[in-house]
C-alpha cells in the first residue's frame, strides 16, 4: 500500500461521493475544481431528503413537533460549526448566503458604522473580487480609501512591505486566508498583529481555508471570519459569518424582517439578540441542516488526517507537475494548499482547460475572480487544478500525462 493510502480509506471515501464515478467524454471524471466548489457526500444529500421527507417545518416559532425537530436540527448545525471553528459561543455563528454575503454584511453594518472619511481599509493583492468590491462600494459611500499589501514573485505577502501599509488611519484588514488563485496560505498571525498595533479590526476570508486548514477563530484572533458551505462539501447558497461578540453586539442589523426582531411597533422596533439579529426572514433551513451532515462527515474522517492526506497530494502534485518542462507555476509559496495555478508554455489557459476537459479532467481556467492579482503577474489567467481529500496520486499522474500530451499539441 502506498504511503498516502495509509492516511485515509480513500477507496471507501470515493464511494461516498457518487459524482466521482461520472464518465465525461468517455473518460473517468477527474475532478480538480474543488476550489470552485467541492462535491457532496451521500450523507449531505440524504440529510436534505430526510429533512424534506420527515421534518420540514418553519423554525423558532412553531408550536408543534415538526417545528421542534427542525429547530433542534438547525441549531445543532450552529453548535457544531462553533465547535468546528472553536468559536467562543454558538451565537457568534451567523448563517449567510455565502462568503460574499458575509463580507457584504460586514461592509454594510460594521463598515458603515465604524469606517468614515479618510479611514483606510487594508486588502492584499491576492484578494478575490468578493473581498474587494464590497469595500470599494463602502469607500465610495463613506469616503474611505483602500490600501493594498504587496506580494512577492512566489505569491506571498511581503511582510516587510506590509508593515508600512498600515497607518493610524487603518480601520480594517480584510485578507484572504488561503488564496483561491494561488493556494498561498497567508501569515494571518503576523498580519493580525500589524493590524492590531494600529487599532484596526480583522476580517478573514476563509472560503478556501475553512475545510482544508485547522481553523481556530480564537487562535487566529480575528474579529470576523467568513466562509461558504459549498466549498466545505455542504450545500450551495449558504455560508457562515463568525464575529467577536462585542463587535457583533455593537453592529446594527443587516436586513430587517421577521426573526430579527424582539418587538415591533409602528413607533419603533427592538431587535432580537445574537445571532438572530442578523438572520432576517425564514432562513435556509434544509441546507443548514445538511451542512451539519457535511461537518459530521469530515469529523468522522478526522481533520488531521484530511490535512495530512491533502499535504501529501500537494507535495506529490508539486513534484510531478514540476517535471513538465514547459509548465510554469503562477505562485509557488512555501506555505500553500493543494491548489496549483500554472501556464503551459505559450498556450492559452482556456485551450488547455478545454483539452483537459476532453480527457475527463475538470479544472478551472481564467482569472479566478482575482483580476488585480493577474495584473500583478502580467497575465490574463491561469489553469488551476485544486485538489482535495477524495483526489488521488493516480489522478495527478493522469493530469501530468495529459498535460505533456497537450503541451506537444499546443506548443
Amino acid at each position, binding site marked *: 500500500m502506498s504511503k498516502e493510502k495509509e492516511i485515509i480509506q480513500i477507496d471507501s471515501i470515493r464511494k461516498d461521493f457518487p459524482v466521482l464515478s461520472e464518465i465525461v*467524454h*468517455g473518460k473517468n471524471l477527474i475532478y480538480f475544481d474543488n476550489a470552485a466548489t467541492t462535491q457532496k457526500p451521500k450523507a449531505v444529500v440524504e440529510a436534505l431528503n430526510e429533512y424534506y421527507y420527515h421534518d420540514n417545518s418553519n423554525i423558532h416559532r412553531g408550536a408543534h413537533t415538526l417545528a421542534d425537530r427542525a429547530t433542534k436540527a438547525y441549531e445543532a448545525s450552529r453548535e457544531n460549526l462553533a465547535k468546528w471553528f472553536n468559536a467562543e459561543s454558538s451565537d457568534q455563528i451567523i448563517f449567510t448566503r455565502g462568503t460574499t454575503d458575509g463580507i457584504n454584511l460586514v461592509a454594510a453594518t460594521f463598515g458603515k458604522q465604524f469606517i468614515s472619511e479618510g479611514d483606510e481599509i487594508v486588502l492584499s493583492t491576492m484578494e478575490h473580487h468578493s473581498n474587494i468590491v464590497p469595500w470599494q462600494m463602502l469607500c465610495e459611500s463613506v469616503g474611505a480609501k483602500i490600501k493594498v499589501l504587496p506580494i512577492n514573485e512566489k505569491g506571498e505577502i511581503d511582510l516587510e512591505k506590509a508593515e508600512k501599509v498600515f497607518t493610524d488611519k487603518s480601520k480594517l484588514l480584510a485578507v484572504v486566508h488561503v488564496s483561491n488563485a494561488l493556494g498561498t496560505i497567508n501569515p494571518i498571525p503576523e498580519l493580525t498583529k500589524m493590524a492590531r498595533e494600529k487599532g484596526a479590526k480583522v476580517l478573514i476570508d476563509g472560503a478556501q481555508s475553512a475545510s482544508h486548514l485547522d481553523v481556530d477563530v480564537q487562535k487566529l484572533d480575528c474579529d470576523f471570519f467568513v466562509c461558504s458551505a459549498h466549498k466545505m462539501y455542504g450545500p450551495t447558497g449558504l455560508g457562515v459569518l463568525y464575529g467577536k461578540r462585542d463587535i457583533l453586539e455593537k453592529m446594527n442589523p443587516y436586513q430587517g424582517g421577521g426573526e430579527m426582531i424582539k418587538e415591533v411597533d409602528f413607533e419603533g422596533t427592538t431587535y432580537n439578540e445574537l445571532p438572530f439579529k442578523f438572520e432576517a426572514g425564514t432562513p435556509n433551513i434544509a441546507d443548514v441542516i445538511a451542512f451539519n451532515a457535511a461537518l459530521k462527515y469530515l469529523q468522522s474522517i478526522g481533520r488531521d488526517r484530511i490535512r495530512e492526506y491533502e499535504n501529501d497530494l500537494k507535495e506529490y502534485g508539486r513534484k510531478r507537475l514540476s517535471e513538465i518542462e514547459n509548465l510554469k507555476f503562477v505562485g509557488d509559496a512555501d506555505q500553500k494548499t493543494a491548489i496549483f495555478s500554472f501556464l503551459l508554455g505559450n*498556450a*492559452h*489557459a*482556456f*485551450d488547455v482547460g*478545454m*483539452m483537459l*476537459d*476532453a*480527457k475527463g479532467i475538470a479544472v478551472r*481556467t*481564467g482569472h479566478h475572480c482575482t483580476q488585480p492579482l493577474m495584473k500583478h503577474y502580467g497575465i*490574463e*489567467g491561469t489553469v488551476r487544478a485544486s485538489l482535495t481529500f477524495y483526489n488521488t496520486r493516480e489522478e495527478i499522474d493522469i493530469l501530468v500525462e495529459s498535460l505533456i500530451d497537450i503541451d506537444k*499539441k*499546443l506548443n
Partner: protein
Amino acid sequence: MKSPEDIQNEIIEEFTFLGDDREAMINYIMELGERLEPLKDSDKVEDNIIKGCQSKVWLISELKDGKVHFTADSNTSITKGLISLLIRVLNDRSPKEIIDTDLFFMEKIGMSNMIGSQRSNGFVSMIKKMKIFALAYQGQLQKE
C-alpha cells in the same frame, strides 16, 4: 454560392463524422483555426476587440460590392477555430443574408460547453458583432 443553411449542414456532417471523440473534435476545430485568413497585427487593436471572460477576439469587416467580408483572430486556438466556422457560414454575403441567417450548427455539433457555459466567451459576442456590422452596412446600402 452555397446558402448559409447548406454550409451549416456541411459543418454538422463533418462533426458527425468525428462522433463522440471529444479530443478529435477539439483537434479538428484548432486545425480549422490555423487555416483562417490571417488578420494583420496592425488590426489587432483595442477598437477591434470583442472581449470575453476567457478569450479575446479581434474582428474587422469591410463592404465590397454589396457583400460583407470578415477577418478575425483570437488569442485562443479553440476560439479561433470556432470563429473560422462562423466566418465560413457568414462571409462574403449580403448584409440582409447575414441578418436573416439563423445559426443552428453550434447546438448541433455539441459546442455548447465551449461557448454557452463560458458566459462571455468572445464567440457569443462575435455573433452579435457580425450581425451589427451587417445591420450598419444594410443601412449604408439603403441610403445609397
